[in-house]
């Protein structure tokens, strides 16, 4: 039987998630033995035509051209896995969704008229059907290997959707929110990173996006008691997964409760 083929595709992103594949130093050559890396521009000049048995898609949709291109990628992909916060929720660049893009463009670029972009940054699944989503900003390379391995073996990948707290406790970290009063997003964030931040004495900042049943309101309430202001709470929800529905909606609710019905960062500036 021919080796299955792998395609790696990039949209708006930092490249970190696809780099995770090259960062799998111990497994890379073995993976390349089991799966034919047919299209991975970051690593190889060789581009084998699709269709691809497995496609890894990094990045979010931010331009009209990319909104078209993702359909081509979907058509060429038998099993499409989105990797990383950009691809699964729109990434940090989705902060534009809460603001005025023209204003943004004029802040960064001297000639905004040269730039063509959409007003939003959106997840791949908002455009085409996705077979599996791997979270994280960046993804965890062990999880990536697990997903590729599970795909090859036709097994369900062990990628749990429960909270970071479960991993935090499994590794024996003392809860920093309880023991140090440090605000932590672990309880509402999906596991997968290995609960790194609390192990380094800092609160989780939610880079794996919302867990399976996030009770953002209840955590926000508690953070309030720890002395976190509303605006900081909104900022905490609006980082790398700002556009994930659970975080987006909660941040909007919080904003409304502080600034009335207006939305967007301008209202917070006043």
């Amino acid at each position: 039987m021919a080796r299955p083929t792998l395609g790696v595709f990039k949209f708006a992103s930092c490249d970190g998630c696809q780099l995770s594949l090259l960062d799998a130093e111990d497994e890379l050559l073995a993976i390349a033995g089991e799966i034919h890396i047919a299209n991975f521009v970051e690593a190889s000049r060789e581009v084998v035509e699709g269709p691809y048995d497995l496609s890894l898609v990094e990045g979010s949709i931010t331009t009209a051209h990319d909104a078209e291109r993702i359909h081509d990628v979907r058509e060429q992909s038998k099993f499409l896995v989105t990797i990383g916060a950009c691809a699964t929720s729109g990434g940090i660049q989705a902060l534009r969704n809460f603001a005025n893009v023209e204003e943004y463009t004029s802040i960064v670029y001297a000639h905004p008229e040269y730039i063509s972009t959409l007003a939003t940054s959106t997840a791949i699944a908002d455009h085409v059907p996705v077979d599996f989503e791997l979270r994280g900003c960046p993804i965890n390379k062990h999880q990536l290997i697990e997903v590729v391995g599970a795909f090859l073996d036709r097994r369900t990948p062990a990628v749990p959707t429960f909270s970071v707290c479960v991993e935090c406790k499994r590794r024996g970290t003392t809860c920093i929110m309880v023991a140090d009063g440090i605000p932590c997003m672990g309880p509402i964030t999906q596991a997968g990173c290995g609960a790194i931040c609390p192990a380094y004495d800092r609160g989780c900042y939610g880079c794996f996006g919302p867990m399976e049943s996030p009770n953002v309101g209840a955590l926000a309430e508690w953070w309030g008691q720890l002395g976190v202001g509303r605006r900081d709470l909104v900022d905490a929800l609006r980082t790398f997964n700002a556009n994930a529905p659970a975080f987006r909606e909660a941040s909007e609710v919080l904003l409304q409760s502080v600034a009335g019905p207006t939305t967007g960062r301008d209202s917070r500036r006043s």
Partner: protein
Amino acid sequence: MGRDGVDRLISILEDRGFTVMGPTVRDGAIVHGPLRSTGDLPIGLRDEQGPGTYRLFERGDDALFGYVVGPSSPKMNFHPAETVLWKGSSDLTRADPAPEPPRFAFIGVRACELAAIAIQDRVFLGSGAVDRIYASNRSGSFMVAVNCVEPGATCFCASMDTGPRARTGYDLAMTEVIGDGIHHFVVEAGSDIGAEVLTELGARLAAADEIETAERLVGEAAGKMGRSLDTVGIKELLYAAAEDPYWEEIAARCLTCANCTMVCPTCFCSTVEDRGELANGSAERVRKWDSCFNFEFSLVHGGPHRVSPASRYRQWMTHKLASWYDQFDTSGCVGCGRCITWCPVGIDITAEAAAFRARGGDRA
């Protein structure tokens, strides 16, 4: 005996081939870690606990055991968070070696922890099948209990009838007496090997008044519990409350983060993950702690049985305080208070139990 006696105890246990574990300070909390001498103990520290909060403070004396339980428990060693269940090749020939029993000695185990261990013994050793990982870790372990004289704000072992005095399950039990220029430990043996070690320790016989003081301190501790839980008819109460809308009120606060189940010394649930390098013809099955708060826990084809946070909290609390009696003929809660302290938003099982009791009263 004095502090030097505890040091002697540690070295005797080491000499007998035990891995000696006990309370140590790590990352701002008292957790179980390897002990080489009393210097590794949290000397002169006390913990202040409350719903969702835990802080360490200086006591102002040299007490070795002047605190209560922290986030960890011997469960982490007996029923590890992650362990390989089976490893083998495609013809299912087993490749993982039989486990080497590690032989742990735990110093400073509290009565509630002994009660919790007794419960897990029942789960893994005493209800039909024997779990070989638990059995291996647990077998030959040596328990040095410390009777609690200063219970914490989230403790309620007295109402669960598991403490503050260690009653069974220990090899040695000590009571630390400190104050008025006195600092010593009154020790008693609870098993043959315990008696042997006690003899080897060569401690002098405690005087009657010393024993009396120790007894009195422990006795008084029962009245100093920060919390209590009324267990009378609790099973029937919770079964009857299965459809009480109050579960929704708790669910509004509950994060379903699973912390309570992770820290609970009796919670035993686990899941299995399959890992493999099938191309190389090898695979392993890894057991990891799981929780009834996780979706996948109740997943069947078509979706999880327990989707709403309310149903998941209900499962947890009802299991602890009610169905555990049906399953194992004991409460699943030993009153250690960990789930109260380590709930990131301070949900309190004693308060919720009281709330159901109040509502049950209304219903009746």
